[in-house]
């Protein structure tokens, strides 16, 4: 491509693409939308290990909610954890259990996991209305924005906007807190990227710009900055290389 991809050249757009563009993001296509791949500057992966905030809002995710949802997903070979826990799936997808029958499945950092698509297709292929309960699709890709806060200062930054004790020794990997973050109802899940502390953050997509500003503000004293998906991938790759 000769001209760089701009968010407006595709129909699907991140809820905060203007903020990202204003911060100098370089975009890459994925899931029919532009995602902030990099913000440039010195070693972005190191920034992500220190304190980074990434927007994964355009990334693929599906939800299933309502009577029978958890059982149906289990019947699809999905690992369903306890309520308020998340669990990695065989292909790297991540399942977040938000209630007895309220579940969300996201693709992975590298967007290679196809489980969300497979589940959406499997549900749609079934009879409608259903003969037996299997939950209903939830438009989590649209209703939630998806941010990832990474790095050694992530817990300290969260402590400025969230009243739940999220410090790594008190909030284990795989735990979910559904709580208030900067006065916004939110899902906070600890799903580290390799050995780097990472909180997966989901909240009202209409409030995404507000939320992004609040979190960046809270990050400032620790030298935090926005990072792109390439930095996240590097953090993931570097560690797995070591392993």
């Amino acid at each position, binding site marked *: 491509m000769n001209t760089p991809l701009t968010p407006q050249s595709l129909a699907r757009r991140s809820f905060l693409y203007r903020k990202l563009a204003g911060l100098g993001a370089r975009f890459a296509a994925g899931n029919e939308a532009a995602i902030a791949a990099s913000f440039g500057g010195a070693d972005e992966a190191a920034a992500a290990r220190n304190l980074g905030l990434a927007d994964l809002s355009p990334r693929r995710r599906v939800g299933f909610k309502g009577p029978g949802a958890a059982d149906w997903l289990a019947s699809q070979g999905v690992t369903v954890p306890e*309520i*308020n826990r998340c669990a990695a799936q065989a292909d790297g997808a991540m399942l977040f259990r*938000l*209630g007895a029958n309220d579940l969300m499945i996201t693709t992975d950092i590298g967007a290679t996991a196809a489980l969300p698509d497979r589940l959406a297709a499997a549900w749609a292929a079934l009879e409608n209305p259903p003969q037996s309960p299997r939950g209903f699709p939830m438009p989590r890709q649209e209703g939630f924005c998806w941010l990832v806060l990474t790095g050694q200062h992530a817990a300290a930054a969260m402590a400025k906007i969230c*009243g*739940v004790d999220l410090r790594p020794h008190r909030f284990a990997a795989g735990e979910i*807190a*559904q*709580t*208030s973050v900067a006065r916004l*109802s*939110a899902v906070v899940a600890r799903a580290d990227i390799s050995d780097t502390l990472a909180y997966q953050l989901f909240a009202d997509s209409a409030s995404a710009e507000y939320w992004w500003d609040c979190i960046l503000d809270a990050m400032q004293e620790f030298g935090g900055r926005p990072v792109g998906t390439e930095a996240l991938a590097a953090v993931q790759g570097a560690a797995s290389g070591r392993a």
Partner: protein
Amino acid sequence: MKIMKCPMNGPRNISEFVWGGEVREMPDPTAASDHEWAEYVFIENNTKGVVREWWMHAPTSYWFIAERNTETDEIVRTYPATELYNSRREFK
């Protein structure tokens, strides 16, 4: 700030919760007198001592029951609403 224990989400600051009024049985709307219905709609018992109340964890919109001592403001117990309401209510 008080801590309340949500049956689904665990202990949280009370600011995450919304009060939903006393747990009260709805009288049969077809049989109740006007007076009984007005009592049900308008009058809180305002009991001194342990009361049963509806509370909702706002981030998850999860409704549950709390037993709270209005004299000491101590939250005695919280539990899912299914403990009190476990079958479909019918109206005829």
